[in-house]
């Protein structure tokens, strides 16, 4: 591969070299293993069973995932992790999306990133190995724009206390710890601490539960405090989360699109397969164009993140975060359309993709919010 680096110029930025936009043999193997595992262990029948429960969570499955090393992927090797890069994590997320799997990997990767960048040595040493082993499930309360949330910190004679609530917290039902931002730094708080309540919310996307986390006179001390500004902590979680969500959305879109294409080949009306009609064929062709474009941005953002290229991350992440969920929402919607009446039924799987994608357009910031951020970076608006 020594002869490939010169083909195109933009792959070299700053100090680190961003990986080419192709999968290495190892990454392709990782993809295949993930696809096989999810196909065998989380088929649609299992997805439906899990999404009927408030936590959509299966401890046994989570331990199988831990045995595969997924929770450990973004954790350094000396802290019980696998020390993979963000590109490998992204490969797995694309497969999770394709399977619409209700695994709380998004929150786990966000929490991992927060501990890696903002944890104290003690927190990293105790918590990261537990997360890697599948023993500790930690989530991050990323504030949702427009929600009436807030957690106040006050000092009492007995120490600092938290009061308030965080809503729409991703995959918080059943989690053992929550990262929460306050006016005076961010904290990791165990959910079984006195005064903590996690209330499931009825989520549009039943494969990804949301919860309202309530704090009533919850005691926190320095051992719970993360390092650095609370805004930076949330930004780390939002950035890493958005990149993985973008890659997941590529998988969601690809899964729904493939399903529509196969259906268009076999469904006959007017004596012809409906895929032979240009109205249907062109819709699916346009979706392929948009899918591949989205995939390029999701892969690129993961590669920028993998080499900690700050300047490139500032552009690549909002590009992928604004484009991929919207693209997936459109393509999964078209998949329902191509399926026609059957695609609108509860028993058909098309709505699972559509709900997963539609929720993703708001989950970590709207497309418009990401574009505002991009506009500021580019000094365009």
């Amino acid at each position: 591969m020594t002869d490939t680096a010169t083909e195109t110029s933009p792959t070299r930025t700053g100090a680190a070299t961003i990986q080419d936009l192709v999968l290495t043999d190892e990454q392709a193997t990782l993809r295949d293993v993930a696809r096989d595992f999810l196909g065998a262990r989380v088929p649609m029948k299992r997805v439906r069973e899990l999404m009927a429960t408030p936590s959509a969570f299966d401890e046994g499955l989570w331990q199988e995932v831990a045995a595969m090393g997924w929770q450990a992927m973004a954790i350094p090797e000396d802290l019980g992790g696998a020390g993979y890069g963000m590109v490998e994590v992204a490969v797995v997320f694309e497969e999770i999306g394709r399977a619409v799997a209700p695994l709380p990997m998004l929150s786990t990767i966000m929490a991992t990133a927060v501990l890696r960048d903002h944890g104290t040595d003690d927190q990293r040493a105790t918590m990261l190995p537990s997360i890697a082993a599948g023993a500790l499930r930690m989530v991050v309360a990323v504030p949702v724009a427009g929600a009436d949330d807030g957690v106040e910190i006050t000092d009492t004679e007995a120490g600092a206390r938290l009061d308030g609530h965080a809503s729409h917290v991703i995959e918080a039902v059943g989690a053992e710890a929550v990262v929460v931002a306050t006016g005076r730094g961010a904290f990791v708080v165990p959910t079984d601490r006195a005064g903590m309540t996690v209330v499931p919310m009825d989520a549009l996307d039943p494969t990804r539960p949301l919860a309202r986390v309530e704090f009533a006179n919850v005691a926190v001390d320095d051992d719970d405090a993360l390092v650095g500004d609370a805004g930076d902590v949330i930004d780390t979680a939002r950035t890493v989360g958005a990149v993985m969500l973008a890659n997941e959305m590529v998988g969601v879109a690809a899964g729904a699109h493939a399903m529509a294409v196969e259906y268009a080949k076999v469904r006959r009306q007017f004596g012809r397969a409906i895929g032979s009609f240009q109205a249907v064929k062109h819709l699916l062709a346009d979706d392929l164009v948009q899918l591949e474009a989205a995939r390029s941005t999701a892969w690129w953002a993961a590669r920028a993140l993998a080499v900690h290229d700050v300047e490139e991350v500032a552009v690549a992440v909002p590009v992928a975060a604004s484009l991929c969920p919207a693209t997936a929402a459109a393509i999964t919607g078209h998949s329902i359309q191509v399926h026609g009446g059957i695609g609108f039924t509860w028993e058909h799987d098309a709505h699972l993709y559509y709900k997963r994608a539609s929720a993703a357009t708001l989950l970590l910031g709207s497309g418009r919010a990401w574009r505002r951020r991009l506009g500021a970076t580019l000094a365009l608006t």
Partner: protein
Amino acid sequence: MDDMTRIDDAIDALLAAHPPATTPPRDFWGAQFDAGLAWVHHPVGKGGLGASPRHLAHVRSRLGEADADQSNLRSNIIGIGMGAGTLLSHADDAMQDRLLRPMFTMEEIWCQLFSEPGAGSDLANLATSAIAEGDQWIVNGQKVWTTLAHVSRWGLLVTRTDPGQPKHRGLTYFVLDMDSDGVDVRPLHQITGEAEFNEVYLTDVHIDDAMRLGAVGAGWSVAMTTLMNERVAIGGNVPERGTGAIADAVAAWQDSDHDDQAMADQLLQLWVEAEALRLTSLRASHARTAGTPGPEGSTSKLHWAELNKAITTFTMQVLGPDGLLMPGGYELTAPTLDEVPVVTPQQSFLRARANSIEGGTSQILRNILGERVLGLPGEPRVDKDLPWREVPR
């Protein structure tokens, strides 16, 4: 010695013996051809080194770094991009030796005589006839949308030699000397007023049978070779971030009051889509280099055509009152080879309408993506097995 080392050594020697800064471009291109660096995948002596076509981009990139003039790739694009590969596959040695070098040095410009008034998307429906007479062919018909015909010495010509066969089977392919008697090139002015293209009228034009490429009746497959060659020969070319039409949109935005939030968001949406397209081209080029090309290589033309229309339309909206004007008016001109025209946003806006027609309409490209990439069933083809002369037209 592996391909890469041979190529790099040849480039080093070329640059040392013919420094781009002091060598006239035409002399440099001749030396580049002789060094086997015109098309590295061609055999030695035919402008190549017998290497893999995936090294083309490396050569272009290294010569670019050395500031060598590579404008021939663009200015003689039909010849260098499409003609060369066709000659390599279908012409005899004598013809290759006569034609390839002056093509690369731009001493002889090439054009492509494929489209006709009645054969656009349905190219195989073409009607220009060639009738055998001794060891010559007599050609009559009309070609259209012929880029560069007004400056060309040679044309890649597809004709119908047997109207009794179904449309794909009765075609024969020739190299036409554009200086021949009976070749009449007329400028075709487009909606910008310019004439990038021409109409070519062919009246009793005589072509030696020696100028035929491929067998009589095999013109369709030769024509496919021509169309398949373009991307290979020019090499993956990925633009810089924020360049092209989106740069004009950004410039117009920055010159405006830019107080309209809806428009600001629209600009950013277009910027994101342009970046997504750019990254997809980059990905396609990486995949080609790695030898694992996928669907990302087939979506770019369609995506670009539609996006370019959207961006140039947006720019006119940003221009506001200036979007009502056509600075300089509509001059009925034809571009020359050595002038680089100044393109206004208004011209780009109008020119973009052709993007989704030329080089495969967006509708045909969607059919191709749907049928060849996604495997969807084809449209019913009513004329497929009928003799061409019996198809209603």
